[in-house]
Structures are given as structure tokens and as C-alpha cells.
């Protein structure tokens, strides 16, 4: 049984080593970005934003943690596929006994690891800023739910990255997906604001954004507060990962592994 999974473990090790070899670009750069968000929005502008039961910096930290996980999981899987399309080693996956599910889970876990590193470091930096402002650290209200939402979110977005990258015909198309679909969904998913502050129409519309449930799941895990029902968020998270897994499988079966 374990022997059958050797192809999966080999690809997973390759995926982790791939981002580790360019760690400045894959991990440090996103951490710098998250730190700047914390400093500019959380510390500087955040002082002027009044929230009911927590400072704006405290509200921002969970959102940025999840944003880091989702963005980096997506980018890791998609850049792995795209660079393999250029270098030609994507064909190696197809000519070897790797199954489609092994490819999906190896790339998804590779993306999740990178996302979790960025998310964890962002959380630690957020804690430092929070301590500097309030002389205390943020607690973790529901650790199990926090980890669950981080894992499901990271895996789902890595699978989306894989599916999109295997289907696109150019880097431009991948960029368009990221810029016009992914970034708006994340930014409008409640990273920087509570949807309760929106006009009722936009608040209602936001409920169709699946990212909202992932971000609020993490916020609930850390702060114990949320804009959405947690059972509903959990249900949507599970539905998302099942859907994107099926879509990834469909994409791998029906896309070319040939080099560009």
C-alpha cells in the first residue's frame, strides 16, 4: 500500500524543494507584503478606525493570515505547472505511473505548505505589532477550527491553481484569472473589512463569495468573532474542496501535458 504512494511522496518532496530553492521569492517576498499591510493598514491607519470589540489591527491579522495562505497556495501550484510546461518536465508526470489524484494532492500539499509558512510568519509578525500596540498577544479562540479552515482553504486554492494552470494556453491567461477573478474575490472577501459595514445589497452579494467563509472561519478561529455562520462556513469549505478536486481531476484528464 505504502509502495503505491511512492510516486506521490516523490512529487510532494519535489514540490516542497521547488519553492524552498527560491525561498526569497516564494516565501520572504509575500511575508514582506503582509508585513507592510499590517504596518500601513493595521498600525498606522488602523488607529483611526474604531471597531466594537477589538482594534482594527487585531481584526486585520486573521484576514491577512488567510490571504497569505490562499494566495501562496494558488501561486505555488500554478507556477509549478506553468514552469513545467515551459521546461518540458510536465510530460514526466504523464509518462510515469503517477495517478491524477496523486498529482493533485502532491501539488495541493506543496501549495498548502508554502501557504502555511507565509500564514504562520504573518501571524507571528501580526502578534509583534499587536503586542507593540496593546502590550498583549492575540489569543487563539478555536485552534482546531483555525487549523481546519487554513488546511481546507490552502488545499482548495492550490487545486484551483493547478486546474487553471493546466487549462490555460498562455501565462497571460493565468495572469488574467489571478487579477480579474482571484484578487477581487480575496479583497472583497472580508480581509480588510467586516461585510456588516457594507450597504445591504453588497452585504447580501458578498455571501456568494466563497472566500468570505474561509476568511471568517479563520477569524473565528483566532478572535472568536465572525460575520457568517460557522457551520455554514464549514459546509461551504468542504463543498469547495470537493468541487475543486473534481474540477482538477477533470482538468488533468482533458488537458495537454505537452510543453509550450
Amino acid at each position, binding site marked *: 500500500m505504502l509502495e*503505491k504512494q511512492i510516486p506521490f511522496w516523490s512529487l510532494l518532496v519535489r514540490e516542497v524543494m521547488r519553492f524552498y*530553492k527560491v525561498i526569497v521569492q516564494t516565501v520572504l517576498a509575500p511575508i514582506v507584503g503582509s508585513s507592510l499591510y499590517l504596518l500601513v493598514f493595521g498600525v498606522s491607519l488602523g488607529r483611526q478606525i474604531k471597531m466594537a470589540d477589538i482594534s482594527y489591527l487585531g481584526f486585520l491579522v486573521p484576514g491577512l493570515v488567510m490571504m497569505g495562505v490562499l494566495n501562496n497556495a494558488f501561486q505555488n501550484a500554478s507556477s509549478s505547472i506553468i514552469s513545467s510546461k515551459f521546461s*518540458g518536465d510536465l510530460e*514526466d508526470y*504523464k*509518462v*510515469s*505511473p503517477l*495517478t491524477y489524484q496523486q498529482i493533485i494532492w502532491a501539488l495541493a500539499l506543496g501549495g498548502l505548505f508554502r501557504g502555511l509558512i507565509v500564514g504562520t510568519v504573518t501571524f507571528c509578525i501580526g502578534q509583534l505589532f499587536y503586542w507593540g500596540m496593546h502590550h498583549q498577544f492575540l489569543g487563539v479562540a478555536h485552534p482546531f477550527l483555525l487549523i481546519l479552515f487554513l488546511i481546507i482553504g490552502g488545499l482548495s486554492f492550490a487545486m484551483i491553481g493547478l486546474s487553471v494552470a493546466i487549462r490555460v494556453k498562455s501565462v497571460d491567461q493565468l495572469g488574467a484569472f489571478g487579477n480579474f477573478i482571484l484578487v477581487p474575490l480575496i479583497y472583497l472577501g472580508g480581509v480588510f473589512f467586516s461585510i456588516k459595514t457594507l450597504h445591504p445589497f453588497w452585504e447580501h452579494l458578498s455571501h456568494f463569495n466563497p472566500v468570505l467563509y474561509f476568511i471568517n472561519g479563520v477569524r473565528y478561529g483566532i478572535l472568536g468573532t465572525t460575520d457568517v455562520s460557522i457551520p455554514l462556513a464549514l459546509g461551504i469549505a468542504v463543498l469547495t474542496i470537493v468541487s475543486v478536486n473534481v474540477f482538477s481531476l477533470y482538468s488533468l484528464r482533458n488537458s495537454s501535458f505537452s510543453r509550450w
Partner: protein
Amino acid sequence: MKDYGKVKAVQDVSFHLEPGEVFGLLGPNGAGKTSLISTIVTLEKPTSGQVLVYGFDVTRQPSEAKKCVGFVPQEIVHHGFFNVEEIMRFYSGYFGYWNNQKRIEELLKKLSLWPHRHKKVRQLSGGMKRRLLIAKALSHNPKLILLDEPTAGVDVELRDQLWELIRELQKEGITILLTTHYLEEAEALCQRVGIIHKGKLLALGPTQELIEKFTQREIHICTKEPKSAITHPLLISQEGNRLIFRIPSHQTVGEILKSLQISLDDVVDLQTKEGSLEQAFRRVIGEELSC
């Protein structure tokens, strides 16, 4: 069969390989060689038909079939940030070998890549890159190796090295299918060949038999004294004491001399030029073109 929309890349092609042989799939560019090889390694799905590798259907039992096959693509694969040893480790891992260091070391030494094992692909010479592709393909001890245009664009020295390697692999009992449009290569290496053109398999058989079937021998006879004008259906040129005939493979020089009543004492010099695979290939392709 393999179609790309309205284009029929491979049509009604059927052949089998004998264990331990070197089989050459010949054809001009765009003949369907790469489409055929891509179907065997599952990079392409056949539109219809069946490909069996050691009894395993590549569509229905892909894992079992893939374990039997080592694939050497035509173009160099770069592998980004990884070095030679890492590439070998990952690749053999994809085939189910977790701790394959002994085999990796053996292959890298055999292919003179061991001193370069810490280099990235872009730091290797063209020959080393080709050898790395072969090392990868051999990492899981396949019974069948598919070489897609192995010597396309390589210099003579590297070509000779690759030919030698192919012969060594055959001695080890590995079956080899190579595609090429270099007919000299196929003639030197392949026990059997198939000629493919516009997706159709036009000729198939032992290399020597195809040469004999589709070519003629040229005989140059130099006599002591010039002969008077000769009329013979196989004569193609007569200049002074020099006669040139083109005869079918089954006909002998003795029969020609006898029919012309030339005794061996009259012959000063006798040369025969056997037909080549290139001539056979041109004939087969030419016949197809004239149809």
C-alpha cells in the same frame, strides 16, 4: 488511429516489436512518428485502436504499461532549479523507487554524468543533456525504451556515442523503438523498420529484406576489350569497356555474365553497389506520392 480534428495523424497502423530488437520507425517530418510514440507513452489518447505494452493496454492499464516503458523525448527537458541527481531521484520516485541511489549512481557513471551530478541541466553540454534524458528513461529498469529522434541536431561524435549506447542497451536485452528520419541511423542500428508517411504504415519488415525488396544492385563490369553495342534490359550504361547494370537483388552477377557470354577471363574489374535503406525509403515514399 489518432486524429487531431480533421487531420488523421495516424491511420490503421499495426505492428509489434520482438523482445530485444531495435525497431526503427522511419518517416519524413510530420509523418506521424511522434504522434505514434506519444500514444504509446499516453501523452496522447488514441482515437481508436489499442496499444499493448508487454500485454498491458496503455489506455486501460496505464500504470502497468508505463512501468515497462522508458521514454526519451526529442527535445531537451530543463527541470528548472534541480540538479542532475535530484532529477534522477524524483523521476525514479515517480515510478515507485524511493531509495534508488545505487541504480542512479550506476547509470550516471555509465553515461559519464557522475562528475556532473550536482549541476543543473542548463550547465550541461548538449551531449550531457541527451545522456541525462536516457539515464532518466532507464532509471526504473524498463523492458522497452522509446527514443524519439535521439540524434536530431547532434554532432557526429555524439551521434556515435548514442549509437554505441543503443547497441549496449540491446545487448542487455532491452527492446528499443526509435523514430528517426536519418536513414543511415536506422540502417546501422535497426533489425526491423517500419516506414510511415502521412500517418500510414507503408512498409514493414527486416531492414535487409526491405532494402532487397525495394532496391536494385548496381554492377560495374570492366572488360579487357570494349564490347560492341549490347542490348540488355538491365543495362543502364555502356562506355568503352565499362558496362553498368542495375539488377534485382535475387539475380546474381554470374547470371548476367552468362547471359552476355562474358567469361571471367574477360573481366578486368567487377564492382557491386548494394542498395541502401535510403533508396528503399525513397522508393516506398515515392510510390505513395505517385498514387
